[in-house]
Structures are given as structure tokens and as C-alpha cells.
């Protein structure tokens, strides 16, 4: 079963498709791998299912726990449906479904595996729900193997199932996206792709060109309103994850989605647009990559005129870090943080350490001073603190 949630009403909504492919039976280390077959060195991904499940939980938790403060919320396009396919190295993945037309609340749903046939079928259902009401939003999350030649190809669970057609169960992400643009009426589409974009010389050598998940019809016009694609890494680069844990990109994505992105809109509410999400994820990924030998930088591609896809129940947050240097001055050092809209005021004594706090995004006055006037005051009168973080060292 892939439909985890379905709200059967005819109104503008947000429809989500989540695909996590960690188990590749025909790749290296897989239960059906052919040791003689060497088209690729790729193997199992212990993090993909964990990452996909985390994203799925982020969408579903507010439905299971109404008091939960973070998670998907969009009154302009409420959650309409969630399709999920996860292939895990640890076996079938089960999720507790919220109450909806698809399942009674609390039903334990076993998710289908992410074979090409299943992924295509889930995409078709997702698309038909998008098209049932124009101006809807579609979100697709994929975590699994990816390779790039001229475009990015994503691997489904059953890649290499057939020795004669080894790449039959891969699909072209770009072809899928361009084709969806011709099918998804007046919709806003978002793709979050947690996959490597390294080159696969075998694909190049074999001149394989796997198609997209949908057939192209060149007679149709492009009908989407906007499209954003957030890649976990840059062209030709790898994406990284801890074994058995969430990937770096998904960790950054979920943190950004959970309050550390977005801004105040004209009508006073706080919301997140695709470019704001991208900016936050980019910053968080850079932060994660610091001091690591394997840096990772995400990339975004946008077109059309987008709308917010997520609304926040509280102001977006900034992880604020302020330090005083040199350390010898800290016993007499004091840092003041004042929001210019008077929403918060903080005084921090530097002798206890670095000032770290999550504060609402906005404009602040930041000050470092000496309680005994032994060094000159430093004041920043109008610092704009935007998600996801802000850090500064006051050198006195």
C-alpha cells in the first residue's frame, strides 16, 4: 500500500509523494546481486529509508498529534494526500496512518517497495489528485541512488534486475519534471532530491537514455505555474550520510522545514517559499560540512511564479551564537541582545560561556560591553537576523 493519507475533498491541497530506496537487491551486497556483473560499484544505502521515514513523519505527525508545533501546515493548501514507498535494508517499513479516507486512524500500514512500477503508479495517482483541483501544490521527495550524465537519473529498487536491460528500472528526473510541467495543471511543484549527482561512465559508455516516469506528449503545452528542484548536492558531486542515520541533506531539510526558514508575509503570517527553504538548507549543509573532509553544497533550480508551500505557527527561528574574544575578557564581558520590535531582550554574562539561543528572526541590536568599562563597547544597531543561523565574534 502506498497511500498513507487521503483527504477526499475537492479543494486546493498539497499532495506529497515520498520515495526512499535503501535496499537494492541486485546491487552490491544485495540478496540477489550477481557477483559477475560489474556495471556499477553502488551498493545498499542504510540511510535512505531512515531519511525518507523522517520526512514522512514530518508530514504526518501534526495529523496524529494535533498539538505538535512543527510539521506541515498550510491553510491555503492543506495536506490532501501522502503516497510513500520505502525500500529498506532492514525489511518492510510500517507507518501509523492518521485518520483519513485511506485508513482509519492508528492503522499500521506496510509501505510498498520502491520498484519502478510502484513508483510510476504512485506518481500517476499523485498527479491525478493534483489535477483534480487546479492551483494545488505537489511535493516529491526522493532519497536513493542517483547518477548524472546530461541529466540526473534516479535508481529504483529493482535496477539491474535484468541482465539484458540493466538500466531498465532507472528513470530520468529531468524528463519526469519537464513532462509533469505539461500535465500538472496550474500547479506548484517542489522536488527535494536526496541523491548523488556523480557521473556514471557506464551510462555514458552504453549511451543509455532511460526515459522519465511519464510519456512525453509534445502536443501539450506547459501548464504548471511554478517548479522548484532542490538537489542535495552539486553537479558531479556526491551526497553523504552516516551509516544507518539520516542523510546530511535530509537533516538540513527537516531542520529548515521545522521553523528555521521563511519570513513574515505581507498579511502578517510567517511562511516559507521555495527559495527561502533553499537558502536555509544551503546554510545548514555548509555548517554540517564544516571540518569534514567531504563538503556538500546543495543546489536549487526555480522557475515560474511560486507561492508559499508552508505556513509557520510561530515566527521563523534563527540559531544565534555570539562570542566574546579574547577569553581573558570574558569574566567582565556582557552581551546584550535586543529585538527592535521589543519582542525580546537578553543580557548574557560572558563568563559562563558562549551565548547560544534560538530567537525569532527580525532586526536586533547587539552589544558587547565590559561591566567594568575595561574595554570599549561594540554596538551593532540594526542587525538583520535571518534563518537559519547567525553568528558573530565580538573581538574586544
Amino acid at each position, binding site marked *: 500500500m502506498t497511500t498513507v493519507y487521503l483527504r477526499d475533498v475537492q479543494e486546493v491541497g498539497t499532495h506529497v509523494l515520498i520515495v526512499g530506496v535503501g535496499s537494492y537487491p541486485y546491487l552490491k551486497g544485495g540478496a540477489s546481486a550477481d557477483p559477475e556483473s560489474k556495471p556499477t560499484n553502488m551498493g545498499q544505502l542504510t540511510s535512505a529509508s531512515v531519511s525518507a521515514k523522517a520526512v514522512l513523519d514530518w508530514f504526518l505527525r501534526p495529523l496524529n498529534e494535533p498539538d505538535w508545533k512543527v510539521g506541515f501546515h498550510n491553510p491555503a493548501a492543506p495536506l490532501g494526500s501522502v503516497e510513500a514507498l520505502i525500500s529498506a535494508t532492514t525489511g518492510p517499513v510500517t507507518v501509523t496512518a492518521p485518520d483519513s479516507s485511506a485508513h482509519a486512524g492508528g492503522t499500521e500500514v506496510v509501505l510498498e517497495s520502491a520498484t519502478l512500477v510502484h513508483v510510476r503508479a504512485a506518481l500517476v495517482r499523485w498527479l491525478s489528485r493534483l489535477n483534480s483541483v487546479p492551483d494545488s501544490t505537489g511535493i516529491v521527495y526522493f532519497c536513493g541512488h542517483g547518477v548524472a550524465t546530461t541529466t540526473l537519473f534516479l535508481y529504483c529498487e529493482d535496477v539491474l534486475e535484468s541482465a539484458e536491460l540493466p538500466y531498465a528500472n532507472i528513470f530520468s528526473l*529531468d524528463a519526469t519534471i*519537464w513532462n509533469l510541467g505539461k500535465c500538472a495543471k496550474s500547479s506548484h511543484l517542489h522536488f527535494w532530491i536526496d541523491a548523488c549527482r556523480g557521473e556514471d561512465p557506464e551510462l555514458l559508455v552504453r549511451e543509455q537514455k532511460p526515459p522519465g516516469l511519464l510519456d512525453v506528449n509534445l*502536443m501539450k503545452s506547459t501548464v504548471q505555474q511554478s517548479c522548484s528542484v532542490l538537489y542535495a548536492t552539486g553537479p558531479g558531486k556526491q551526497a553523504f550520510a552516516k551509516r544507518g542515520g539520516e542523510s546530511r541533506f535530509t537533516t538540513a531539510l527537516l531542520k529548515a522545514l521545522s521553523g528555521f526558514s521563511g519570513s513574515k508575509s505581507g498579511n502578517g503570517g510567517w511562511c516559507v517559499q521555495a527559495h527561502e527553504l533553499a537558502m536555509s538548507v544551503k546554510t545548514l549543509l555548509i555548517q554540517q560540512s564544516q571540518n569534514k573532509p567531504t563538503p556538500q553544497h546543495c543546489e536549487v533550480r526555480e522557475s515560474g511564479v511560486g507561492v508559499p508551500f508552508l505556513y509557520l505557527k510561530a515566527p521563523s527561528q534563527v540559531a544565534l551564537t555570539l562570542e566574546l574574544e579574547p577569553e581573558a575578557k570574558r569574566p567582565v564581558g556582557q552581551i546584550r541582545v535586543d529585538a527592535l520590535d521589543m519582542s525580546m531582550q537578553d543580557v548574557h554574562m560572558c563568563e559562563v560561556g558562549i551565548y547560544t539561543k534560538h530567537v525569532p528572526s527580525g532586526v536586533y541590536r547587539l552589544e558587547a560591553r565590559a561591566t567594568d568599562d575595561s574595554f570599549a563597547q561594540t554596538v551593532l*544597531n540594526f542587525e538583520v537576523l535571518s534563518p537559519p543561523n547567525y553568528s558573530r565574534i565580538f573581538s574586544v
Partner: protein
Amino acid sequence: MKTIKVTLDYKSSDDSLSGKVADRARMSIPFPLQVLDLQGAVLAEGAVDSRQSVNINCDVHADVNQLLVRLLWPTGGTVTQVAEFGGKKVSEVVFSDNNVGPESWAKWSVSRRSSATSSHARKPIKELSPSLGKFKNVWVRLWRHEPSEGWHILSDLPCTQSEESDSLKQFDLELGRASYLLQLGGATMPFTFVSLPGGGPCRVLLTPNVVTDSKSLPLRIVVSGFRPEAEMLAEFLSRDSLQAARSLMADGKASKTVSPWNERDSMSAIVGAYMCLRTGNSLWTGAQGHKFEGFLSRNSWSADAALVGCVAQLREGLKKKADVVEVLDLLKASHQRGVPVFEEAHRLISEATTLLQSLYSISPDEQSKQVPLPNSLNEYKGVLAERQKLAAARAWTGLSFSFFGSTPDNPSPIKLKGAAPLIEDSWQQSGASRTASKGLMFSGSEGVSSLAGIPRVRSRKKSGFTYLKDL
């Protein structure tokens, strides 16, 4: 309602671009701007340049005494000023470039290469300025494309003037009406082609790149064809900063100049067309259709224009099956005219080739349901393959179309480094057609990725290139 009068005093930046040429006297670099409240909410957007102040109206309560005005740079850098109202309805802010960059002749490029941020106008924009010293042996070569003859190397750079400092090198070129590629390479610099705007003066600035991300090169290459409105817009588009791009186009001057219907300047018209495609504005239907035919006809030499035409038609959907030939012909024309000038073309090449590839991917029994294949299948298949190779070799240098490779005819994602390859130009040797293949040998040095299988040639002509230190 409160009003902020915003003045941009970036005259020295404008002057660094205008130089001594009278025609350029009217140039002014525009910047998008935002007005923020004290919670960081964007209340209003607009654009400003140094020729005239703008008044930005903000729908805020009369009690509001402070708002922020933020100037946006394509690199993501920002300059922020405070608008103090003191109980009144009107305030004024002035942005000055007095503290921007020490080299006056390079000020025009700062917003396109520095991501530094200043939260107060009086604070200098602090940039890291590493030395160009380690790049002194980077070689530079200029290629020109002739429609009937293909690519050839120019023995000398048509350099009209140059400037340099420890961290910057800038030179101006005078280019004919053709497609041009500047190729750079070296021990630390992968062989990179950067498209230059032909048909007039062109400026290139080189500086070590302090940004490290997935697409940055060791050298930052900033190109100007002296079209500030179009180039600022193209820079924002190359960084997917659509909101800033739209703010820029909200300015009446910019939107008139950077319009697909601009009949006086092709480059600006092309950038205008790219903006329309990016924001989903139709170029092909209704009243625009006739005007768009004019755009294609006026720019019949441009690889960018042909590509725009191809993708615009694909997005509109083919009206009849025979139109597929027209679309394929436009892609072929784009290929025959050299390479595009703008980075935005990479997106369109990817879109066009991905969609058109489907013509060759469907099974025979499905073909009757789709568009019939043209008889000259192989010809277009070759063009598709060539364009796909170009897309796979994509490099990124900001607004300019760039790619990796050893020669323009052989784009490749493999990043070669080393000495300038010696090109045997067999036309010059034998008097045969210039489109004969070029033998390729490296002059030989450590750390050079080799091209296995390329035959040695008996006689070689050393092709023109210049080291950065000698420019």
C-alpha cells in the same frame, strides 16, 4: 503610508563601466531593493540606479519610525540602510559606493563577485582579496566561430586596454559580429570555455575565487558587454534569484530595455526573452506570436535566440505534427550558430534535448500515437547528441555560458588541466576544408590528464595563447 526616497550614489561604479566612451555615458548599473520592517518582513520591492532616485511607498502604520532598506547584489551580498522617519511620512536613504572596493576601475564588478555584506552604508564592504600570483601561468586563448567554417583560434587577443592589481586582472576586447569563446586553463585551472558577447566591446575581469561551493572555479571570471540592465538580470537568473530578478524588472527603465521586443539591442532582447521563459510568460501565443517572429528574425545570427524559439514552441505545445521539424530546425540552428552567450541557455538545452530525446526513445508501435519522426532522423539525432554533450560539460561562471573541454567541438565534463593544448589546424596545413578535424596534443607537463588514443601528428602549428601574466 510612508514613503522612502532611495538614492543610489554609485557613480564611480557606473564610471568604471562607462570609461571614456561617449556612448556609454548613459550607463548606470541598476540594483533591486527591498524595504523591511523590524521583523524582517518585506514590505515593498523596487529597483534603483544612479541616474534617478526612486520613491518607494510602504503601507505601514503612522507610528512606524524605522524601516530598513536593503540593496541586493547578485552574489547574495547585501547593503542595508535605516530609514528614520522621526514622526514624518517621508524619509530618505542614500547608498554610496565610496567604500566599495579599492580598485576604482573594477568597481563595476564588485556586486557580481563579492558576497560581502554591509549592514550600514558607512562601513566598508570587506572582501577577501587573495593574490592572483599563483594564477600567473594560467593561459588564455580566444576562439571565433564562423557558420561555414566552424571554430578557429585567433592568434592575438584584440585587447584595447587592460588594468591589473595584485588580485585583479581586467582587459577589454573589441569583438566582431560572431560567436566567441574565451578559453582558460592551467595547472590549477580546468580548461574552461566562457562565451563572450560578440558585435562590439567586451570586458573580462579575472580574480581568485573566494567562494567554495559545488560549482565554483579557482578563478572568478566576470564578463561585461556594457549592458548593465541586461547583465544584472542575467546574473540574478544564473543564481536562481527570481524574486530579485522580478524586483529589477519592476523598474520601468529596466523592463523597457530588457525586453524581447527591444529592436536596438539583441543581447538585451535575448535576456528579456530568457526572463519571460523563466517566469512562465508566454512568448509565442496571441499578440505576442507575431512579435516573437520578429524577435527570431532580428536575431537570426544568435544561438541563444534559436534556442529560445525552440523551447518557447515546445512549451506552447506543437499545433500540428509537422511543427516538430521546425522545433528541431531551431535546435539545429542554435548548434550551427556557435554557442549561446548566456548561462540561462544551459537550462534550455537540457529542457529541449530531454523532451526531444523522447522522439527517439518510444517503441515503434507507440510512434503512431505520438508525433511522427522526421525522415532526416539521423541528422537531428546528431544535433541532439552534440547539444547533450555541451549540457553535460556545463561549467558555471555567472551569467556567461561556460563549459569544460579541450576544444569547442569537444565539450566534456572531464576537467582537464595543464599546459595549453597545441592545436594542429589542418586547414592551414593542407588547404583543405577548415572543418577537417583538429589533431590535439598537449605540450606536456606534470599533472596533465591525457587524452588517450589521439594520434600524434607529424607537423604541428603552435596555436596562439597568452599567459595571464603577459596580458
